């Protein structure tokens, strides 16, 4: 059924092919114009998207309350999941953003033959997502070595930690492990593969997946794969690449000849990264910004304590007590219910009008 993931895969292959053929032939276009264009698209796109969100109103305070509310002092409030203070919201958001706390609740339903249901903790998605995002972050941060000269100590420290586990294969047939293996790259590739496989193999998730769910996964898979390839297998001249990246970030690139000796593999890596950057603001990847703005998480759950103001609150037609009593006055009096106006007064008044 899945033309969605095939088309995404094909798109990534075509991109790779373009870079493979075009990169060495047109280094100026692929090495300089493309990255600048991608960064500009990313920055402008992200600003436009986030500012677009910020322009929309937040009319009501609608936090999802995931724990005991603040009520009487002798009842234990869940200050994180039902935060009544700004600080509580801060903690809730921090846990949400840094540890994906809501995913940590994930359960999987099981139905037995007799029609009994159970809901068991299911943490694979949480683990996969955490591994993916943090490995990506680590990979990004250590790439700063290509953009800073001299390379600061903190980046070197991260590299040291990342390559802490020395992992080498040394046989005649295969020599692997030099330069030192970064665990983040391996984890990134493994996690992104897991995220792809669960989309493919879990029928429910496959059913909801769209081409735009597979495409970024393939992009990132391609980025991680070419990165690993360049580092450990078909080596590229790393100094020449840093020469290029440094000239990009110091804006020396426009009057600059892309150094020779940068293999086509690097251009494939680069075009996939650039595509990811340019695609980012127009896709679901904006969840990175959106998570901060989700009103069900970032609002204080003190909604009965402090009035939230709706900027577009407008007066509405209501059925006033007066109109109500006018309609039912006779019946109310008959039933012994108090009324504001006795019939003679009100009819007198109506006559006046």
């Amino acid at each position, binding site marked *: 059924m899945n033309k969605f993931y095939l088309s995404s895969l094909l798109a990534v292959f075509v991109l790779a092919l373009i870079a493979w053929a075009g990169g060495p032939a047109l280094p100026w276009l692929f090495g300089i114009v493309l990255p600048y264009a991608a*960064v500009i698209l*990313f*920055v402008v796109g*992200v*600003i436009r998207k*986030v*500012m677009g*969100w*910020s322009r929309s*109103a*937040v009319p009501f305070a609608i936090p999802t309350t995931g724990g005991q509310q603040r009520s009487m002092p002798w009842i234990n409030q869940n200050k994180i999941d039902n935060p009544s203070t700004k600080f509580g919201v801060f903690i809730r958001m921090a846990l949400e953003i840094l540890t994906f706390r809501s995913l940590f609740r994930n359960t999987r339903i099981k139905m037995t033959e007799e029609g009994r249901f159970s809901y068991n903790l299911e943490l694979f998605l949480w683990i996969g997502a955490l591994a993916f995002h943090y490995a990506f972050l680590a990979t990004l941060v250590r790439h*700063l*070595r290509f*953009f*800073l*000269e*001299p*390379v600061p100590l903190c*980046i*070197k420290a991260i*590299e*040291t930690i990342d390559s802490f586990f020395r992992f080498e294969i*040394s*046989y*005649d047939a295969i*020599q692997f*492990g*030099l*330069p*030192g293996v970064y665990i983040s790259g391996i984890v990134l590739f493994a996690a992104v593969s897991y995220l792809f496989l669960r989309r493919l193999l879990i029928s429910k998730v496959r059913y909801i997946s769209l081409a735009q769910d597979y495409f970024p996964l393939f992009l990132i898979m391609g980025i991680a794969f070419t990165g690993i390839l360049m580092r450990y297998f078909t*080596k*590229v*001249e*790393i*100094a*020449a690449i*840093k*020469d290029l990246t*440094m*000239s990009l*970030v*110091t*804006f*020396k690139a426009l009057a600059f000849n892309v*150094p020779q*000796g940068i*293999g086509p593999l690097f251009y494939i890596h680069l075009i996939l990264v650039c595509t990811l950057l340019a695609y980012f603001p127009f896709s679901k990847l904006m969840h990175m*910004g959106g998570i*901060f*703005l989700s009103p069900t998480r970032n609002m204080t759950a003190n909604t009965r304590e402090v009035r939230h103001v709706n*900027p577009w609150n407008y007066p509405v037609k209501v059925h006033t007590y007066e109109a109500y009593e006018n309609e039912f006055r006779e019946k109310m009096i008959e039933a012994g219910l108090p009324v504001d106006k006795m019939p003679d007064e009100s009819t007198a008044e109506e006559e006046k009008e």
Partner: protein
Amino acid sequence: MNDKKWIVLGLAVFLVLFLSPFLYNVLIKGAKAAPMPEVVLTEKAKAAKQCVMPTEFMRANHMQLLDEWRLKVVRSGLRDFTNAEGKTFNMSLSNTCLDCHSNKADFCDRCHNYASVAPYCWDCHIQNPQGETK
């Protein structure tokens, strides 16, 4: 809306982080170029004209070659490496590589520092075997 300033602030922080390589290099470093360092060849290296393999290959793959050398020497006790031109070399970092490239600081380190690479060669090998023996 009163949260707009927070959104703008958050967005600004993110963009500063994202663009930090540009900002750092332009604003703090004054957009100073940082080209690939020149490696210094010793007289002996210049005289040899070519390393054990072509320069292009060596620039990208020297670590892989050294790794293979190490395997052959340490595991199989082999010592000779013959390149495509049929020239044979002793597979030895200290005695072959550092014989020509005796200037580690100006040859090895320059690029390694530039690319932030910390090879563990020197965990075992001394850096200047010639100097030591003399």
